[in-house]
């Protein structure tokens, strides 16, 4: 148990990210890559993710404005987005991406739109939570080795 209250709080926050299903095992992989040489590796990767994926989100949004839907293209974009999201361990976002692709494959425009809205919500929620988490992490100082979620 962390003696430092900040670290304790950080640990709790981290645990809740896993418990609530926002992040998965892949997030742990990122944490394990973090070391003294790259103390903020996870934050850097997540920052890069949000910057790059914003582009894809925009593409999808634009594609959804064109009727009729080009499902093939939408699926392709989402495939890209899903790959990125899964690489940082964004569990809920990834799940929503999969759902979106299913709708694309079945040509369900309505489903796509609904799913995309949900996806954007999850995407924003995660961003906020991780932002808070990283902020706290910086304040708390070097964190101990990541422990796997129970």
């Amino acid at each position, binding site marked *: 148990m962390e003696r430092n209250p900040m670290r304790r709080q950080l640990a709790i926050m981290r645990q809740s990210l896993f418990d609530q299903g926002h992040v998965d095992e892949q997030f742990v*992989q990122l944490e394990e890559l973090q070391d003294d040489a790259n103390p903020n590796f996870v934050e850097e*990767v997540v920052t890069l993710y949000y910057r790059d994926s914003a582009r894809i989100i925009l593409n999808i949004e634009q594609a959804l404005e064109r009727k009729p839907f080009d499902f093939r293209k939408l699926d392709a974009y989402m495939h890209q987005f899903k*790959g990125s999201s899964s690489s*940082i*361990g964004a569990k809920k976002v990834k799940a929503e991406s999969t759902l979106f692709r299913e709708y694309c494959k079945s040509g369900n425009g309505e489903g796509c739109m609904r799913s995309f809205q949900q996806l954007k919500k999850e995407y924003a929620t995660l961003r906020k939570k991780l932002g808070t988490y990283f902020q706290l992490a910086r304040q708390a100082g070097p964190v101990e080795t990541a422990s796997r979620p129970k």
Partner: protein
Amino acid sequence: MNVSSVKGSMSISSSTSTWKAGDTISDQFPAGLRVLVVDDDPTCLMILEKMLIACLYKVTKCNRAETALSKLRENKNGYDIVLSDVHMPDMDGFKLLEHIGLEMDLPVIMMSADDGKQVVMKGVTHGACDYLIKPVRIEALKNIWQHVVRKRKNEWKEFEQSGSVEEGDRQPKQSDDADYSSSANEGNWKGSKKRKDEEEETDERDDTSTLKKPRVVWSVELHQQFVAAVNQLGIDKAVPKKILELMNVPGLTRENVASHLQKYRLYLRRLSGVSQHQSNLSTIISAQDPTFGSLSSLSGLDLQTLAATGQLPAQSLARLQAAGLGRATAKSGIPITLVDQRNIFSFENPKLRFGEGQQQHMTNKQQVNLLHGIPTTMEPKQLVSLRHAAQSIGNMNMQVPPHGAQNSQNNPLLMQMGQQQQQSRGQILVDSTINHAPRLSSSMGQPILSNGIATNVSSRNGIPENIRAPGYSQTPSMLNFPVNHASELPGNSFALGSTPGVSILTSKGAFQEDVNSEIKGSGGLMPSYDVFNDLNQHKPQSWELQNVGMAFDTSQHSNSLQGNLDLTQSALGQQGFSSGQMNGHNRSAAVANKAMFSTGDVKELGSAQNVNQHLNNLLVDNTIRIKSERVCDTSPANIFPDHFGQDDLMSALLKQQESVASSENEFDFDGYSMNNIPV
């Protein structure tokens, strides 16, 4: 060609030279492994880089495939392994994979979030040594060094084997192949090759003198020279030693050539797989030359083949055969038994089945015709090949007999060849195809064909020449197939079957070669090669149908380079081996083929990449299937109303192919849909 690495890897400890870092393998390996990672996603790229560094590898990252290729080209010996994403905007990952395999011969691992069976299968068929599903975990990266070691070990083995085997193996294989002097060589060579492929013989690997040879960079020019040499020799007879002599490149060793040849064959095989599919349809359709009465009969065989492969419903096949047979002047009705014969050959490779059907068909006919004279001009040849094919069916040996080709010209020879069958089959078929090639071209009215054929013909007239045709003269053979009907194809069956025009021939030839030389029925690749041989041999007809369709389609696609347009050599070279050129080639080929092939191939040509991909897809197992499917479709339509029926079939097949081709992603191969994975 990483000859040095190959040699060096004989024993891990000696692979020091292969590691640039200078670390001794035993000490630090796999640390220092030089990895090139390519992924257009910056997040993934960053994570991968960090993971690879954590594995103590030396990492170079690229976010574009073109960048990666140029880095690899600039420094061919600078990397040990490549990790590439499948879906990239500027170039498809599989295309990159092929380029790397051909030009640099480095192990490539594909990655994708897509874990669909088809995509993974595509990776396998394109030669990827592994496929990782994203998100990639570091544990998966910790062991990638095994692919480097394995590859080098295998290459070393091949070099050693091929070298020693080749030299020591030159004993006439068949006792009674007085007529097939070439076959003897082929047999020997094949045997040695097969052994080589089996990689089970390590007793000959005492020779470590070749360790640490400098890695050869197979530039586009060099590769073209190589392809020219191989074409000149004929795919069956293209042994590294001779290729080396023909190329006359100072500093190039036989081992370099052997290794490259192996890769090349693999590449051709892939192409032929795709092209077969296409070519079969196109060839069949294009083989509507009325002058070739046997064509109809052959088509029956082809149909059988197709049916045999399980694609064609038995009834359709029977019907087609009957139709075809009925037309054949000298040919008695083709019994459905042929189909049964096919069953004998239950090769996994659909193509093989195809070939089998053909052979069977042909065999029956052949035997009848051969003995009783050949009603049509083509028949003798076809018969010969048929016979051989029939015989080959029994043997199923891959040794495509170069002899066969020779015999086709003379019935008496054929008789002899019959005995030799297996070997001669390929030859005869080749011959017949070649001979017919000219006719095909004329009758077909396909410029490409004629070109191809002409080339083939000239080369084929001699038995040994036939051997060549299969490999690279695919085009001609392919053309011939439709016209001449399978019988001739066998020799070149590889080429013919596989790709519509070019690819089939190429692949066939390649296969035959491989089969004969390398695959004595063993080893991984062998089966596939064998398939080709058998296919070629047994089913001259089936090939026709198959090849026709395939030839046209395939050739147009990627293979177009080779076959139809007389670009065989250049096309091949360009196609497979020069990334940039491939596209160009395909396009040009496509254009050329366009004129020739009416069908959708043209559309396919639109994007060289697609073509290649398409071909690859097609080449992969589905070729046969596709063909079968095609044939099935047409068969019910009673494609062979008369000896011209084949034309209809061909056109029908072509149409099918077109539709198939045009919808690359829509191929619905039985069990192996190589649909392009949507990005």
